[in-house]
């Protein structure tokens, strides 16, 4: 046996093996595509078997035998047209013309070879080049359209088809040339061998190759979605997961339904990014969730006519769905829609189940992350409350010690000598600490009432400038001058005047407490867009970056406040924030550009200031305004 014969034999054995494999698939799970694949390789294998049989019978040279072989061989390009139709659809006339041409060329082969072999050979070459070439190009185009493993398999099919056609055309060119061309034979056999190997990869890839081909898809999906465990918004995370799943398949869309533990619904993220609920047996997704088994619906509109409009809107012709579950818990369902049927459905289903498993893992991880952070939040809240209670108790006990001690002293003195003189200093201490106690208690009650929403703001239009000025005036005898920097015209907002004064007073007291000894705090008021801004500026040590938001939390005491004994309950800024929020405004802390802390209150201005507040119009100073501004009011 020559090397060439050995290659030929190997090629033929491989074609037989491939035929058996695709036939087995077609019988077990019959689909049109599988039947047509079996037809393609059936025709090739028939040629192989028949030509061996004819040689064995010694009739190989008979024109009728050659005709039968040609007829059988010509079925292969026709099967390819049918496969093109199965994979990507062809116009009806192409299929009809293909069938008609097969009949014509079959008749020519059968009856014409004896009389005009050259015409038959040329006709066969044209038939293969035209029909087979069309199919090979259509496969290649389909390969470019798809992605992942389907793309690789389609590319292998296109290469196999092109090589197969080249091999057959070379055979007939050799026959036409009619002189012995070894080169041509070698090329033919190599092309045929390469063709069958490519067909194997396309139509029946071994599982280790499939795994290798699927891996990049899976990795890409994981790389895209692994960060989603940290995305705060559930809807955002699920929308991203859906997109990643759809892209993995090259599908028109994907939907992840999340089961509600208490109600029979599946929650989806709609196109607008909001939650949408459907009964947990609606759509293919719902049916899959009920069955807890993957589902393939080739024609969703036909299978579920009630929801036809929804499927059409989603571009869902074929729908595949798999349950998302972890450790037996039903989490939800993953549905992928495509505008046409999958080519290699077993690969898509395999991938779908993998993605469903990964989705389950990601959703579980998200749930755990959320749970853990909620738990941490609760623990932190409990710890803060504990710390606060302990600090509050400490704060209350200290003045109480003075009150109790002084009272018992008076009692003891009177007991010993009813005419003993009063101790003015002791009584002053007692009164001072009792007042301190009263302030602490009212701060506690204030915070409690604000927390529970029991405090009702009595809002009325007021000139914010006059409110700030009133607070400033109360601190006029503070020793150091207090600067108020504001515009000339009235900035009118709807406020509860005593409450807003309380806020500014509190901020100002903090500014004195934590500010620089040699540089007094400043008050500023200005307009920014539709808002009035009031700022209390100090030049002290400032607030650490991480503390600026936390200092407004209930029970939170900034480290800088812990070392100072003359503090309140640590509720002051919380009370300020709640009062400002009750006004629909905002309050925040920022760094004073020259060092220190600046607290800013933003309140919406009245769209039209009532006439009694309108002063002469004047340009508002821009922030940050510095000394030398004409609108500075000295204390």
């Amino acid at each position, binding site marked *: 046996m020559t090397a060439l014969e050995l290659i030929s034999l190997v090629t033929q054995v491989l074609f037989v093996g491939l035929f058996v494999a695709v036939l087995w698939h077609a019988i077990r799970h019959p689909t049109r595509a599988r039947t047509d694949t079996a037809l393609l390789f059936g025709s090739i294998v028939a040629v192989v078997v028949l030509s061996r049989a004819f040689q064995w019978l010694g009739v190989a040279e008979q024109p009728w035998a050659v005709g039968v072989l040609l007829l059988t061989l010509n079925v292969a390009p026709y099967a390819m047209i049918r496969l093109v139709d199965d994979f990507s659809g062809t116009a009806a006339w192409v299929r009809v013309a293909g069938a008609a041409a097969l009949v014509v060329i079959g008749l020519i082969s059968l009856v014409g070879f004896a009389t005009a072999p050259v015409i038959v050979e040329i006709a066969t070459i044209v038939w293969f080049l035209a029909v087979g070439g069309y199919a090979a190009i259509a496969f290649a185009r389909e390969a470019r359209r798809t992605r992942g493993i389907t793309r690789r398999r389609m590319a292998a099919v296109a290469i196999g088809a092109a090589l197969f056609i080249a091999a057959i055309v070379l055979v007939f060119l050799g026959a036409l040339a009619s002189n012995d061309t070894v080169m041509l034979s070698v090329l033919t056999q190599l092309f045929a061998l390469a063709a069958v190997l490519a067909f194997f990869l396309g139509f029946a890839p071994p599982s280790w190759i499939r795994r290798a081909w699927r891996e990049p898809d899976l990795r890409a999906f994981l790389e895209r979605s692994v960060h989603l465990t940290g995305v705060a918004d559930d809807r955002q995370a699920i929308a991203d997961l859906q997109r990643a799943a759809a892209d993995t398949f090259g599908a028109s869309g994907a939907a992840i339904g999340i089961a509600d533990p208490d109600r029979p619904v599946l929650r989806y993220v709609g196109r607008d990014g909001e939650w949408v609920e459907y009964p947990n047996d609606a759509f293919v997704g719902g049916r899959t969730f009920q069955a807890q088994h993957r589902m393939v619906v080739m024609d969703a509109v036909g299978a579920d006519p009630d929801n036809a409009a929804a499927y059409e809107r989603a571009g869902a012709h074929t729908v595949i769905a798999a349950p998302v579950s972890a450790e037996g818990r039903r989490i939800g369902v993953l549905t992928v829609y495509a505008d046409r049927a999958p080519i290699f459905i077993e690969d898509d289903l395999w991938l779908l189940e993998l993605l469903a498993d990964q989705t389950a893992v990601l959703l579980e991880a998200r749930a755990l992350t959320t749970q853990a952070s909620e738990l941490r939040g609760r623990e932190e809240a409990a710890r803060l409350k504990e710390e606060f209670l302990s600090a509050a108790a400490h704060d209350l006990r200290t003045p*109480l010690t*003075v009150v109790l001690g002084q009272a018992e002293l008076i009692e003891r003195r009177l007991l010993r000598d009813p005419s003993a003189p009063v101790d003015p200093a002791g009584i002053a201490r007692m009164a001072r600490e009792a007042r301190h106690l009263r302030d602490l208690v009212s701060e506690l009650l204030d915070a409690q009432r604000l927390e529970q929403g029991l405090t009702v703001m009595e809002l009325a239009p007021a000139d914010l400038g006059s409110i700030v000025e009133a607070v400033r005036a109360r601190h006029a005898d503070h020793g150091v001058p207090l600067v108020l920097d504001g515009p000339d015209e009235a900035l009118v907002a709807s406020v509860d005047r005593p409450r807003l004064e309380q806020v500014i007073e509190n901020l100002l007291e903090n500014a004195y407490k934590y500010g620089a000894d040699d540089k007094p705090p400043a008050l500023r008021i200005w307009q920014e867009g539709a808002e009035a801004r009031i700022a209390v500026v100090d030049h002290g040590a400032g607030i650490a970056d991480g503390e600026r938001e936390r200092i407004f939390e209930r029970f939170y005491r900034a480290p800088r406040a812990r*070392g100072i*004994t003359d503090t309140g309950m640590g509720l002051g800024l919380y009370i300020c924030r709640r009062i400002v929020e009750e006004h629909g405004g905002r309050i925040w802390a920022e760094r004073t550009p020259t060092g220190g802390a600046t607290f800013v209150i933003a309140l919406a201005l009245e769209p039209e200031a009532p006439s009694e507040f309108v002063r002469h119009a004047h340009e508002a100073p821009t922030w940050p305004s510095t000394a030398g501004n004409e609108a500075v009011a000295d204390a």
Partner: protein
Amino acid sequence: MPELRVLVVDDEADIRATVTAMLEIEGYDVDEAANGADALHAIEEHAPDLILLDMRMPILDGWGFASELRRRGHRTPIVVMTAARDAARWASEIAASAFVAKPFGLDDLITAVERARLQP
């Protein structure tokens, strides 16, 4: 009962004045200090028989003061005086003789002081 010199250490002036008056009416001889550092000076000057010590104070707190006091070899009994819930634990941490939790009345204060004084 022999006269007893007591050093009152607390950063709150009103507390110091009140405790001083409470002790004086019972016949004790009292000195004051506003924090641990001041108290260390007072120890050298007045050599008190007993120290009434607040724990949380600026500059040098109760713990710092107690360890420095022992390091210098003074065996003066200490009565911890605090508004915190951990009075008992803090007292044992610095090997104090007794503690008194704020707010306290005259009797509580004198009982704690006398217990510390009578301890061997």
